[in-house]
Structures are given as C-alpha cells and as structure tokens.
C-alpha cells in the first residue's frame, strides 16, 4: 500500500508543478483559474450582447420604418433582404427568436452568472479557487461550443430557429413548417443541450464551493448577499435546467425520430400527418417549469450585485439583511409553482387559472420587501454616485416599474387581454431584461478594478448610464401603450391594420430610441477595452468596501492570496458604524481591533476570537 501512497504523492506533486509553470495556453485559454474563466464568460457575454442588440436594432427598423428600404443592409444580410429592399418576413421571426435566445441564455445567464459567480464566489468566501477548476473550465468550453453552434446557425441558408425563444411545437417540431424549423432549429436544440450541460457544471461547482470552501469564520449568516444570490441562483438552475433538457429531449424525439409527444391532428396542405395522441400544451408546461425560474436565474445575481453595490456606496449597512436572504429564498421557492401564468390562454381550467393567479401574486410580496430594503438603505444615506451605484439604482427603478405590470399580468382575467401583446414585452424587458442588464453593468463597473487591476473611466460611465437609463424608458414605456392598444408580439408588420395606424409614430419613436440606446453601448465597450490596458492603476480598495476580495493584491495570482487566507470575524456590512475610526470595517478585522465601535455583544465575541489563538489582543 505504501507504494500506492508514494505514487499518489508523486501524482499530486506533478500536478502542482504543472500549474505553476503554465504557458499562454494553460494560463489564458484552457485555464482552470476562476478569475480567468470569469473573464472568458464576461467577454463572450459582451460579444453576444452586441450581436443580440444588433439583431434587435434590425427588427426595430422594420417595425418603426416599415415602408423604408433596407437594401443598404444587403452587404450584411444578403438574401434576407428581398429584391424590393424589404426584410424577409421569415427572417424577421428568426431575428426575434435569436434576439430572445441570445439575451436570455447567452448574455444574462452565462454572461451574468458565469462571470460574477465565477469571479466573486472564491474571492468573497476566501477560497483559493472553485471546488473543481477542471469542471469549471469544462463549463466554459461547453458554453463556448454552444455559442459556436448558435452563431453558425445565424449564417446557414435556411436561417436560424424562428419559432420564438420559447420554441413552441408544433411549429418547432415540424421541419416542414417553416425555414427556421429545419436545420436552424436542430442547431438551436444542440446548442441549448450543450448550454444546459455548461450551466449544470457551473452550478454544481458554485454550490459545492459555497458550501464546502468558505474560509474560517464565514458562516452563512455572514455571507455577502452577492454570494447568497449566486448560491440560490445555482440551486434554482440545478432544479430547473434539467426540465428544459427533458423538454428538448422530447422535442428532439418528435422532430427526428417520429414520436408524437407534442403532435396530434395536424394537417399540412390538406394532408394529415401520421402523428396522433400528443399535446403541444405539454411542451409549454415543461418549458415554463424552466422558463419562470429562468427569469429569476437571470435576475437574482443582478439583485445580489445591487445589494452589495448599494450598501457600499450608500455607506450604510444593507437594510434587513435577513429579510433580503429570506425573500430570495421565498422567491426561489415560489418561482417553481407559478409557471402556468404563462399559459392562461391555453384553455386551462379557470379554477386552476385562479390558483396560479394567487401563487403568482404572492411573489410580489418578497419582491416588494427587497425593493423596500433597497430604498431604505438609500434613505438618508451619504450616497456616492459611482457609475456602479447609478446602474444599481437604475436596476431598482426597473424592478419597480416592471414588477408593477407583472401584477397586472398575474391576474388571469387581465392577462387574457394582454397576453402576447407588447404589454408583456414591456413588462419583461423592464423587469428582467433591463434590470438584469443593469445589474451586470453595475457589476462590471464595480469589480473592474479587481478583475483587471485598473479603473474604468467614470465620466464615460456617467454618459453611458444616462443615455442607457433614459433610453430604456423611452423604448419600453411606450410599449405598454402599444400593448394595451392590442399590438400582438412577433408580427412582421402592422401596416395592413387601419386600427394601428395611429401608433405608427410611436413605433417610430421607439425605434429611434432603441437605435440611440444601442449605439450608446459602444461607449461602454470602448471604456471597457481601453481601460483594460490604459486605465489608471486601481488602488487596493477603491470603493472602501468590506468584502474579502479587496484584501487580495492588485493582480491576484493563482490562489488569490499570496499568504494565508484571511479569517472572517464580522458580517460584510459594517459601514458607518457609530464610533468607528473609518466609515467601513472590513470583514477580516477582528472585534478586538475595534473596541471603539463594538456593541456589548460584540465585545463578548472578543473572548471567542482570542480563544482560537489566532490573533493577539492589542492592549
């Protein structure tokens, strides 16, 4: 046996040796370091955001200026612009489908969780790296493979998937139904299968790491809210993405093997298909069982980031820490039992509809608690309006305005009117799209100094914020009216309906605002890449923040802390504590060093601290 042990020791030694002398490939491409993987996710996410945004600008041009010629886009879009200079109607559907898919999954799921869970979990819980660096690397490369397939599908002759990001059968199940249901749909399914694998690999890692690798003293009750959010997001993902996998599996069976899970009584050009006995509504159940939790998978990390940024820049403890954690848990739980509010018009039993209405409206309670806590934290605070803070406040604003319309939609009688109109589009773009996007931007502005050791330009950040913030409202607020007026989603053109003519100007206005907002994002892209190389070198703790990541060197190496990992003694929100010398006390400062600001209970804890023999008491 001892030879076996010797052999094992040798193996381990070999591994370490290997890691320390990494070359360009192992350091930057196939890296197992969580910080590098986070940056890979971020940059891929930014790439996708530009693509997704560009697609939306194209279809907004069609909606805002339906009569104008788009032939100048021919060099890019080729055959998708018809001879008359019009956008191909089927390609319009492909555009909205790919826009939704890209934004929801590739930008706001992978780009957001992938970046910040990877970057912040080890740094904020005081770990050398993720539980499994290898799995983490695989997670990125599965995402990359998925991205490549999805990207290629944009360029194939029959076009990418076109049945909406929710890919409802029978449209998506029958290759002969439309161009986009052919090869493009197959590639969509393959890409999403890889994507699910990536998400699950990442999620398993995040959960394992948060539970097992916290540094000494870091109990769950001292965890920064970011980590709570990432943790709960990963749990939700672990429970819901497999269900999307099932849905995709059954759909693939129907598409490629001829089963009839979702198909029945279908006639194409007067000819009956052989498929009998299936139910397309079944797919909707499976899809929305993922789909609704997915919206929180997208939003919760952004809320976590916001909690951290708001507390830091308000220089105040977050109001209601336990309430924040509790409401995230309640939201996570409820998110699994409300899915049918997306299906009120599928002919469900009205009694069932009212059950789902009730459950849906309950979600408003924890959501309101969170909003209340953000506002209370900001109330009377000495606010530092950094770009990250502005984006976080912007998030809170969108969460309120978009959440309110959720309450409208949650009521089945109202939703039956509004379902599949632009009102729904307005709702989820504010509450999910824009809010999560702002959370992501806040995170980038806030943690850029830790990611790249340099500062982003704040002036450009302000310009970027104000253009984007006003832009988002100018785009999405009018959509409520357009929706109430009855405009259905995913229509190529409304020029044939006289009733809609009054709104042509409004649609034009929205499109102009959308284009300006999109162009404003290039300010960010420039600022981001410029600052990576040319930004001012960042101070150790630029925002005066309490969490552990700011105790690492400016350019943390592999393993994050050159010496021992700091021990945690207090919660992360000791901002402006009465009596304290400075307006923040980082988590790794023991109570014995802050006698001036300790409460009597905290003075009690000093004995425990010294009991560990870890710190000396300074007289």
């Amino acid at each position, binding site marked *: *046996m001892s030879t*076996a*042990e010797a052999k*094992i020791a040798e193996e381990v030694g070999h591994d*370490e040796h290997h890691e*320390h*002398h*990494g070359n360009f490939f192992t*350091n930057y491409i196939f890296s197992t370091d969580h910080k590098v993987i986070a940056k890979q996710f971020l940059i891929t996410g930014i790439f996708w955001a530009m693509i997704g945004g560009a697609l939306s600008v194209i279809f907004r041009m069609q909606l805002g200026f339906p009569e104008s010629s788009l032939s100048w886009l021919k060099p890019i879009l080729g055959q998708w612009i018809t001879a008359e200079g019009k956008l191909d109607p089927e390609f319009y559907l492909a555009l909205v489908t790919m826009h939704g898919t890209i934004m929801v999954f590739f930008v706001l799921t992978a780009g957001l969780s992938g970046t910040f869970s990877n970057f912040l979990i080890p740094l904020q819980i005081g*770990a*050398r790296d993720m*539980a*499994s660096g290898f*799995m983490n690397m695989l997670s990125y490369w599965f995402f990359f493979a998925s991205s490549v397939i999805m990207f290629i599908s944009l360029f194939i002759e029959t076009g990418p998937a076109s049945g909406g990001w929710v890919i409802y059968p029978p449209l998506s199940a029958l290759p002969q139904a439309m161009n986009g249901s052919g090869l493009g749909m197959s590639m969509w399914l393959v890409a999403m299968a890889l994507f699910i694998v990536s998400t*699950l690999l990442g*999620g*398993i890692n995040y*959960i*394992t*790491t948060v*539970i*097992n*690798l*916290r*540094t*000494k003293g*870091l*109990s769950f009750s001292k965890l920064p809210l970011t980590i709570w959010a990432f943790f709960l997001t990963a749990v939700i993902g*672990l*429970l819901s*993405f*497999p*269900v999307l*996998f*099932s*849905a995709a*599996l*059954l759909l693939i*069976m129907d598409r490629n*093997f*001829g*089963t*009839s*899970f979702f198909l*029945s009584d279908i006639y194409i050009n007067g000819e009956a298909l*052989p498929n009998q*006995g*299936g*139910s397309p*509504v*079944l797919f909707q*159940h*499976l899809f929305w*069982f993922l789909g609704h939790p997915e919206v929180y998978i997208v939003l919760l990390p952004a809320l976590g980031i916001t909690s951290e940024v708001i507390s830091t820049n308000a220089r105040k403890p977050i109001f209601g820490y336990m309430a924040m954690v509790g409401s995230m848990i309640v939201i996570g739980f409820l998110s699994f039992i409300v899915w049918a509010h997306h299906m009120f018009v599928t002919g469900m039993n009205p009694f069932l509809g009212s059950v789902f209405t009730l459950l849906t409206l309950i979600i408003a309670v924890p959501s309101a608690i969170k909003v209340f806590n953000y506002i209370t934290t900001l109330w009377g605070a000495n606010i530092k309006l950094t770009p990250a803070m502005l984006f976080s406040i912007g998030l809170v604003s969108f969460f309120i305005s978009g959440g309110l319309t959720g309450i409208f939609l949650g009521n089945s009688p109202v939703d039956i009117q509004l379902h599949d109109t632009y009102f729904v589009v307005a709702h989820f773009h504010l509450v999910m799209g824009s809010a999560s996007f702002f959370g992501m931007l806040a995170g980038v502005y806030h943690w850029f100094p830790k990611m790249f050791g340099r500062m982003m330009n704040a002036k450009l950040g302000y310009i970027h914020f104000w253009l984007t913030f006003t832009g988002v409202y100018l785009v999405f607020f009018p959509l409520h009216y357009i929706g109430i007026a009855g405009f259905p989603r995913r229509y190529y053109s409304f020029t044939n309906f006289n009733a809609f003519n009054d709104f042509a100007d409004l649609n034009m206005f929205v499109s102009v605002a959308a284009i300006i907002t999109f162009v404003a994002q290039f300010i960010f892209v420039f600022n981001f890449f410029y600052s990576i190389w040319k930004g001012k070198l960042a101070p150790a703790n630029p925002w005066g923040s309490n969490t552990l990541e700011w105790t690492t060197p400016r350019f943390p*190496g*592999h*393993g994050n802390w*050159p*010496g021992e*990992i700091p021990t945690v003694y207090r919660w992360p929100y000791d901002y402006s504590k009465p009596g304290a010398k400075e307006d923040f006390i980082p988590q790794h400062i023991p109570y014995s060093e802050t006698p001036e600001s300790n409460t009597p209970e905290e003075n009690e804890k000093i004995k425990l601290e010294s009991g560990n023999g870890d710190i000396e008491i300074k007289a």
Partner: protein
Amino acid sequence: MAESFKIVENPEKPLSMHPKKFALWLFLVTIVMIFASLTSAYLVKKGDGNWRTVDLPSLFWVTSGIIVVSSAVLHIAYRAAKKDLIENVKWGLLITLVLGIAFTVGQFYSWGQLIDNNIYLVGGNPSESFVYLLSGFHLLHVVGGLIFGIVVTVNAFKYKVHSKSTTQIEMFATYWHFVGALWIYLFVFLMLNHQ
C-alpha cells in the same frame, strides 16, 4: 503568474464534505429532476386523454431483479474494500459489472417483447413512446455507470481500491444504487400508470 507562495490548506472549514462526493450528489439531483419532469409529463399527457394502455414486458421483472442483486453485490464489494479484502473487492466489482451488462441486454430483450406486442417507439400513441423513452434514457445512465464501474474495477485490479482509498468505489456505489433505485421507481411508476 505568482509562483512565490505555497497553497496553504484551510484550517477548520465551517462544514465540509468531500467536494467530489458532494458534486456527485448534486449531479444526481439533476437526474432526479429530469426523470421527475418526464414522469410528470407522462401524467399530464395521460390526464389529457387520448391514451392507450401498454402491456409492460414481463422481462422488466427479471431486469429489476438483476439490478437489485447487482446493488447488493456492489455493497458487499464496498464493505470488503473498507476491510482491505481485496480479492472480494475484485470479484464483487466484476459480478456487479456482469449483472449490469445483463441488465442492459435484458432491457433490449424487453423492448423486443414490446415489439412482439406491436408496441413501437415511433408511430403509436405517446403512452407507448414513453415506455421506450423512460427505459431507454434510464439505460443510458446505466451504461454511463458501467463505464465508471470499469474504471473502478481496473483500479481494483491495480490494487488502488482499498481501505485508505475508498472514494472512487464509494462514488460508484452511490451512483449505482441510485440508478438501481431509479429503475425500480420507473418500473413501479409504469405499473401504476400504464393504463
């Protein structure tokens, strides 16, 4: 990159499980969710009407027996590894693998029985496709387990599985008991809901 420091082990972690074993449990959760959703889909579809009763293949009883026995044998092998009875570990693992392969073959024969009854994966009612889908997708997990089992067995023959190195066989056992239990669940589920 920084090479000047040593990685120091964390002292006293707040709660600690072996990260790999923990990750395996999380992986099992994802499989549970897949089958939970598939069987829920089955029930929803059945509740929807237009349902055809499927006579389940009698061989399912045999394969169920095989997988239960294989789990028991694997448990014996695992206990043997803890006591350093290496020969028993080897035999136990080999028998588990053989039984696993027998299960796989048995499932194919079960599908043969279905076909003899004119029940096909394709072309019939979803109730019929579901039987293939559930057993087939489960079988995929069994095959994954067999590959894992082969790795463990090879290691056992290299004397790498013993009382001081039980992680691998323990993880294999966890997984194997899981797919066994999963099959029993699916079989009982189908028996209760096939008509």
